[in-house]
């Protein structure tokens, strides 16, 4: 059944356990009932056999003496009309002579004296054949298939000679009511036991299935919702399901790392492409720009002083200056010669930012200090820290905090700038360092781009962690020990 195969383990395990419990209960009950039935049957048979033996012994004398009434009284005394176990009550008891004629019977009207029981036909006719077949001095139990009776026959033996037989006929169905009662009792007890066991088994089965279900739930979130996969819900134990959980956890972890790496790589490649593009454009612009500015300077020095032309050239010069500044900002280049980055540079930067911070009532904290100048170009580092601090002050909440952290150890400068403002949304994060990607109206959108370019040129690394209330830029730049 497909429907059953597709059923959730949530139901499948408990149902199978229920089926097993029910099956066991039924099997045990059936076995007990069968055993009880056999026992009942054996009791009945042994009772009948011993009764037949006793009757046969007792009846020898009356039969020898032809004392019909005495024999009848003995048969009657073997019957208990108020029997506690009616199934032990013979339906018919008769004594037959050597020719299989009735000597006396407990039911004279059905089996009159002198008549052959075979006259009744059916099973009784078969009895005679059975008597002829066997040694006539043995007790026999005969159970004709087509008769509602079964018979116990005991020979009446006097001095080794069979005078006849005592035949006890028992109804096959007389113990059916007792058997039904037995089955009823067994069913009742089984039901009681099941009432106790089933809820416990159901609960246990649900517990068994729960870790698998948790695992399946977590798997459904991969790879679509990798970030929100509820890994802590997974089973922690050491069994096979626990091992599966561990493997799954590892797999999700690796998938997440891979995803992050891919994102970083894409961002880096994009930034590299943008960098190459802007550098190319800057060079192409810088060459004619230099020529144009030189031409304006030459005209001023050697021109005829036409006021309108001078005014026009001033306008052109300012425009060209702005283009040069913008291109210069795009094209960050390490100057070959620069002084080392000194602790005093930090103080200068703090003074520069202070005015802006005061305007927004942002508190500046500085953690750590540089002990000595570092062999890093001061201009570029000042540019990085200034840009990051200004960004942080602008991003911080009104009256918020900005923190600058510094540490130089083992040839590596660690800088960190945090603010407590609104965090950077994921959609912006991917393009954070690209030029003109600023989210603010103020500024030209090149601040972080410049930072990125400088860090790259200095072979450093840069990470951003942004969550509500805390955005941190971390920068690592290696420096050679002086």
């Amino acid at each position, binding site marked *: 059944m497909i429907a059953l195969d597709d059923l959730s383990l949530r139901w499948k395990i408990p149902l199978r356990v229920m089926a097993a419990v029910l099956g066991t209960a039924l099997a045990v009950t059936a076995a007990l009932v069968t055993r009880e039935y056999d026992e009942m049957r054996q009791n009945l048979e042994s009772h009948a056999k011993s009764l037949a033996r006793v009757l046969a012994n007792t009846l020898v004398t009356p039969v020898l003496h032809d004392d*019909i*009434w005495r024999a*009848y009284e003995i048969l*009657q*005394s073997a019957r208990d009309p108020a029997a506690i176990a009616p199934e032990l009550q013979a339906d018919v008891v008769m004594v037959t002579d050597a020719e299989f004629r009735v000597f006396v019977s407990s039911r004279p009207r059905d089996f009159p004296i002198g008549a052959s029981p075979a006259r009744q036909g059916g099973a009784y006719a078969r009895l005679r054949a059975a008597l002829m077949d066997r040694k006539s001095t043995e007790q026999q139990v005969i159970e004709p298939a087509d008769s509602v009776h079964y018979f116990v026959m005991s020979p009446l033996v006097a001095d080794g000679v069979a005078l006849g037989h005592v035949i006890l006929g028992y109804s096959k169905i007389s113990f059916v009511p007792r058997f039904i009662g037995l089955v009823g009792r067994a069913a009742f007890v089984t039901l009681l036991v099941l009432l106790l066991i089933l809820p416990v088994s159901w609960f246990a089965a649900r517990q068994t299935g729960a870790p698998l279900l948790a695992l399946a739930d977590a798997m459904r979130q991969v790879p679509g919702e990798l970030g929100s996969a509820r890994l802590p819900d997974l089973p922690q134990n050491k069994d096979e399901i626990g091992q599966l959980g561990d493997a799954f956890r590892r797999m999700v972890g690796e998938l997440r790392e891979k995803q992050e790496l891919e994102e970083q790589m894409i961002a880096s490649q994009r930034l590299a492409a943008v960098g190459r593009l802007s550098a190319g454009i800057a060079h192409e612009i810088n060459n004619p720009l230099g020529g144009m500015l030189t031409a304006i300077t030459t005209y001023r020095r050697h021109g005829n002083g036409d006021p309108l032309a001078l005014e026009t050239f001033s306008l052109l010069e300012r425009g060209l200056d702005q283009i040069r500044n913008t291109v210069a900002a795009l094209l960050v280049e390490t100057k070959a010669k620069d002084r080392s980055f000194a602790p005093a540079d930090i103080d200068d930067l703090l003074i520069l930012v202070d005015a802006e911070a005061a305007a927004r009532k942002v508190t500046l904290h500085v953690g750590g200090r540089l002990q000595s100048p570092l062999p890093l170009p001061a201009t570029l580092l000042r540019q990085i820290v200034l840009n990051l601090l200004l960004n942080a002050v602008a991003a911080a909440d009104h009256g918020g905090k900005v923190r600058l952290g510094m540490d130089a150890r083992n040839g590596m400068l660690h800088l960190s700038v945090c603010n407590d403002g609104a965090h950077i949304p994921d959609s912006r994060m991917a393009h954070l360092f690209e030029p003109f990607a600023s989210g603010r109206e103020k500024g030209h959108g090149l601040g972080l781009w410049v930072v990125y370019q400088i860090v790259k040129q200095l072979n450093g690394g840069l990470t951003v962690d942004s969550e509500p209330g805390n955005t941190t830029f971390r920068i690592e730049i290696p420096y050679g020990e002086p």
Partner: protein
Amino acid sequence: MNDDDRSPVRLRRRCFLRSALVAAALPLLPARAEQGGLRVGLTPVFLDDQMSFLTRWRVWLERRLKRSVVFVQRGSYREVMDLIRGGKLDFAWICGYPYVRYRHDLRLVAVPVWRGRPYYQSYLIVPADDRKTGSLADLRGKVFAYSDPDSNSGFLYPQYRLASQGENPTTFFSRSFFTWAHRKVVEAVGVGLADGGAVDGYVWDTLAEFHPGLTSATRIIERSPDFGHTPFVARRDIPAAEMRQFRGALLDMPADPEGAQLLRLLSLDGFVAGQPALFDGIARMAMRVGKV
């Protein structure tokens, strides 16, 4: 026989066995040695086995005769007859048939009065559900129940009837058997064990009164002529005084309150001295059957 009647019957049978055992121990004593004790023989052939009744009767007789009385019960008339003819009993209550057979060894003491007369009849009975059988002749080849081979009503009369019809009584029925009690003949016929039976009419009528369940399973097809009722007899050499005292006690029973009550339990009116001629009819039948 229906279920209501079965267990009292069985109880009685056990009572009888017990009393038989008690009685069996007693005759070991020489009967004459006990000077004061009167020995009275009884059979269950027509007397219902009732220990309590017999005890009351014995106590009454002892008070009346001012000497001890022992009831000696035997299973058949023959045993009682052997005892009284051997002088081991003083008195016995027997049937008219053994009386006429051994009248020279016995002396007649008293005859019961039933329904005002010292007579009774033999009834031929068949099962109540047998609607076809109308006379003894219809029972040819059937199973027949007698009470006792020394009983007039339960054996001699049917034998005589067959002989007088020219039948051989030994081959007329396919099977016959003795129940050793009239009451059991009624039972045997009632359950269909026997197709017919001969029974003491006095016993049948008494049963019909006290145990109608037994008799209603049977139907009377023939009633015999009147016969002298079952007589009390004495051994031949009974002293005259003992004979007089015992007969007097029996004859006086109706006059005594306790005696009258005992008679009511027996369904008898009383006893009369009776004449041997009462039993001439039985003697003629016995002659005809050839057993005297």
